[in-house]
């Protein structure tokens, strides 16, 4: 707002309109803010609150304050009760991190390859672009079931056909790789779509200049495409990583809830909370997951200087 000294009446009036607009904005935002407070703010507060208590899901009113006991607590007999002392929790953390790092890395590489292919001109380009949307449009639970069937050791194309009757999902060490393959298949197209959108916004004259200078396609990719694509790529990476860190569906469907608890942080928390009715303990685990994800968001945003407009 620039104030024009020759017309003293105007800034006052503008300020009046501004103030009125600000009041109207609050009214327009109110329903959204109330809804967010109701479904996100209040439940998050309750989760943090319950994490400090020993409580059962069926009788949440009969609770005793235990402070950080759900996180770390050793009884006089030397029994470890905090979830941070549970090797199964750390196994779930390790598996989730492995899952996130490997699948997001593969998705980025494959997504880049697919986007570069679709971005070049060839016959059938439209068809490939359409095919790209198919895995993305399939519900996660459905793709999990489809792959469970393909991994099946007595029916499956992969389990019986390629591996000769090996039960890939029966053992956690091989299961994690089988799950990564499902996630990569399902979400590579999402990555490819975002990268493709980034590619199409790149200025073509820079490539013409690079061609004139005799730069090879390979050099052009590393020197031009990749640096220019960085912002789009980083935002896609952040969103995919956060999705992978809170993964639950494919573990739950393909491994069942018991083994899902050993393979994903969310699965571990849900088993404690719902299957075992441990309201306080499960809430403490949820708070830990929340903190882990928030720390990773902060690291991403500061380290890569991701801008969200």
């Amino acid at each position, binding site marked *: 707002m620039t104030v024009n000294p020759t017309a003293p009446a105007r800034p006052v009036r503008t300020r009046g309109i501004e103030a009125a607009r*600000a009041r*109207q*904005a609050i009214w*327009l935002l109110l*329903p*959204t803010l109330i*809804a*967010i407070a109701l*479904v*996100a703010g*209040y*439940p998050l507060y309750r*989760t943090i609150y*319950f994490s400090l208590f020993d409580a059962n*899901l069926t009788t949440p009113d009969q609770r005793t304050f235990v402070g950080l006991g759900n996180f770390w607590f050793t009884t006089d007999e030397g029994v470890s009760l905090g979830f941070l002392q549970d090797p199964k929790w750390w196994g779930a953390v390790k598996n989730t991190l492995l899952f996130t790092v490997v699948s997001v890395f593969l998705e980025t590489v494959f997504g880049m*390859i697919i986007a570069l*292919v679709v971005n070049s001109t*060839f016959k059938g380009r439209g*068809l*490939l672009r*359409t095919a790209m*949307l*198919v*895995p993305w*449009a*399939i519900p*996660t*639970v*459905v793709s999990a*079931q*489809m792959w469970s*069937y393909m991994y*099946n050791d007595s029916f499956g*194309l992969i389990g019986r*056909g390629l591996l000769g009757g090996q039960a890939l999902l029966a053992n956690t060490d091989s299961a994690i790789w089988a799950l990564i393959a499902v996630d990569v*298949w399902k979400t590579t197209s999402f990555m490819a*779509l*975002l990268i493709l*959108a*980034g590619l199409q916004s790149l200025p073509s004259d820079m490539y013409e200049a690079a061609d004139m200078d005799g730069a090879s396609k390979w050099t052009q990719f590393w020197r031009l495409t990749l640096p220019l694509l960085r912002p*789009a790529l980083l935002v*896609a990476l952040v969103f995919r990583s*956060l999705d992978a860190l*809170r993964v*639950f*569906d494919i573990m*739950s469907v393909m491994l069942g809830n018991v083994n899902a608890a050993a393979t994903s*942080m*969310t699965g571990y*928390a*849900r088993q404690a*909370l*719902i299957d075992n009715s441990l*309201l306080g303990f*499960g*809430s403490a685990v*949820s708070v830990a*997951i*929340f903190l882990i*994800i928030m720390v990773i968001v902060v690291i991403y945003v500061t380290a890569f200087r991701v801008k969200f407009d």
Partner: protein
Amino acid sequence: MNLKTTNPALYYLQRAAFYLLVIVIAFYLLAPFLWAVLTSLRSPGDLFLPPAQFITAETTFQNYTQVFSNPNFQRGLLYSLIVAVGSVLISLLIGSFAAYALGRFRFKGKQIIMYVILAVSVFPQIAVLSGLYTLISNLGLYNNPVGLILTYLIFTIPFTVWVLTSFVRDIPGELEEAALVDGASPLQTLFQVLFPVMMPALVTTGLLAFINAWNEYLFALTFTSTNRTVPVVIANYSGATQFDQPWGPIMAASIVVTVPLIILVLVFQRNIVSGLTAGAVKG
């Protein structure tokens, strides 16, 4: 292009390698889905056949008739539709108010509100699971689709607000100024001036939010017992005995819930790409 005349052999080799890559990619993207379609069209007895015979085995629709006559599946479809449509309509309505305010108005604290909305959209759902569970049982909404509609707002609202805000910003201001000069209230302006212009954006955003709500699993699994949505029904589809996984019907049910989505996505292809990039890349 010069390569074609200077070294035709290398040129055609390169083209062949490129088309091979295209075929590999198309196969990778589509084969699992096509295999599921094929499985859904085979009788249970044929599932054991080796791939070559499996492909040529007799086509039957018995899995589909079985799935459609399954009351759990029928109810799942109905509840999925109610829950997804309900949460999307609420989000579009109140989300467009918020998007209008955030995209067009200048006021203090706007930046903070934008960040809060973004933070909610990266929220791990598990962090609110216990709080929501107690809230839902206190409100008496356990196993009630209304409870799911309410809880799905946690991801549909931030998404719609975020995407619609970036659309609202791109609408030229003259349209709305004319209405303001004529003394229209913000709501009148929004409904009569901006909504018609925003129609494509509303459809796109609604569709993407619908897909998310249609696919949701964790809340649906936790907050319902018998009134389940379709993903939960498919995840727990069971056969006559505990050890019998009815793969034919499971694949048929999977195809039934997927095909409408694929058709919608293909029809709205261009809008979807712009919606996704507005939501993710621009911020």
